[in-house]
């Protein structure tokens, strides 16, 4: 571990020197995310799906939709759950077994970004109040890990939910029965998009690679919606941000997010 630290120190010094010259290791601008490719419908048996490649990071999201019994206090809304796991194929250090805290955080931040944005109008996903509602499960599987899984999972989830088809159900004898072959569009209200920024020294870098991630001082993930509002946020890492940096990060997130949102929209048009 000590050896690892020395190498990390050397790498950090090198990366910092480059940053002082205005350069990132892979030649990107500070506020430039990596190449983003989104393919929807890659899992045809799922009700929605998307494969996202963000540089060399790859995530496959699949949406499963099924009727659920609602919780006692939320019988007038559908259910929405997003998860994330790092598959062991994704990286030599990825572990099988119960999720480590970093994976729990990844899943919860992904879920929060979708949920808190109000992306779906959950009131439209009720089959019969207090009896049966539509449950939407969006699971993200990280298949290749080159850093910034937060954003890759955010884009995969948003693209998969945005392009899903909701099977039609009718209540018969108090039970939901699927009407084969009939679907409705999901009640989308906004498209949430997260942008993650690393702080290295005094520099703020959009969409850090795994190399930048390993030596960053702190990070922040800010999710914005179609109206340019901030809807979710998560600070991480072993340093802090100044007030000015936080405002700059929010502005960056909204600016970069609007470009990403276009790519997500395009992916649905191309997929249909």
């Amino acid at each position, binding site marked *: 571990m000590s050896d690892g*630290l020395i190498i990390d120190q050397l790498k950090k010094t090198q990366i910092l020197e480059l940053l002082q010259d205005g350069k990132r290791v892979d030649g990107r601008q500070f506020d430039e995310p990596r190449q983003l490719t989104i393919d929807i419908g890659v899992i045809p048996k799922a009700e929605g799906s998307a494969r996202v490649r963000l540089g060399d990071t790859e995530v496959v999201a699949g949406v499963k939709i099924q009727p659920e019994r609602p919780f006692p206090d939320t019988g007038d809304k559908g259910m929405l759950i997003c998860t994330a796991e790092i598959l062991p194929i994704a990286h030599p250090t990825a572990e099988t077994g119960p999720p480590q*805290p970093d994976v729990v955080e990844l899943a919860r931040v992904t879920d929060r970004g979708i949920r808190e944005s109000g992306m779906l109008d*959950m009131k439209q996903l009720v089959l019969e109040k207090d009896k049966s509602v539509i449950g939407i499960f969006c699971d993200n599987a990280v298949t290749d890990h080159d850093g910034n899984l937060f954003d890759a999972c955010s884009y995969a989830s948003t693209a998969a939910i945005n392009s899903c088809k909701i099977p039609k159900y009718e209540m018969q004898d108090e039970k939901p029965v699927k009407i084969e072959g009939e679907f409705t569009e999901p009640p989308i209200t906004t498209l949430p998009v997260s942008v993650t920024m690393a702080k290295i020294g005094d520099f703020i870098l959009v969409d850090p690679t795994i190399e930048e991630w390993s030596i960053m001082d702190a990070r922040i993930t800010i999710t914005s919606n179609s109206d340019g509002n901030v*809807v979710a946020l998560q600070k991480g890492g072993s340093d802090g941000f*100044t007030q000015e940096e936080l*405002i700059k990060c929010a502005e960056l997130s909204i600016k970069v997010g609007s470009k990403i949102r276009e790519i997500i929209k395009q992916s649905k048009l191309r997929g249909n």
Partner: protein
Amino acid sequence: MGGRDTNIVLLDENGIRCDGRKVNETRKVTIKAGVLKNANGSAYIEFGDNKILVGVYGPRDVHPKHMSDTDTGILRCRYHMVPFSVEERKNPAPSRREIEISKVIKEALEPAVMLKEFPRTAVDVYMEVLQADGGSRCAALTGASVALADAGIPMRDLVAGCAAGKAADAIILDVNNEEDQAGQADLPIGYMPNLKKITLLQLDGVLTLEEYKQCIEIGIDGCNQVYEIQKKALQDKFFPSGE
């Protein structure tokens, strides 16, 4: 939060909140340092209706050995709610929410703790929520800073915690439970007043960029107020008024 129901008046026509506070007023905060016998450092904090006991052990050896680091000490944090701390009895096993909050608090404390001063060892910070109200993570973080200082762990600064948020279309300080449930946004903040750095920041809910800026502004104010109470608690412990 966008669609949460509200039957209670979060803010009345005079700008008074459901618990009688003004928009820029924190709840009552009391902190007592050194409340446990066995722990190396400890603190008991009441932050509104939050009641949290924090114990710190260490620096101490790490088992298994390969989890330690020859160059630096490590900080381990556990935020935990006892079963009777919440409205509906909680299973004692740590939930995913508790695992995430533990990680977020750890990363909020790390910038303040001089970890390099105790290589090869670990400092454990255990936060036990005995009674929960809105803002328990900020309260736990606030208490943890005091308990670390009480344990004599070398620190660059204390981290003070206080949330800002939005309810009834107003920007408010120190979101309580009702405002968290029925409000529009909750932005918990952890702040090092001397170093002027924000080390904890999360957001649930929707804010315009302008509202976001106001929230951070008002939240830092709140943290500065909490910081004074932290310092007072340590003073009372180490320089009791009797001296």
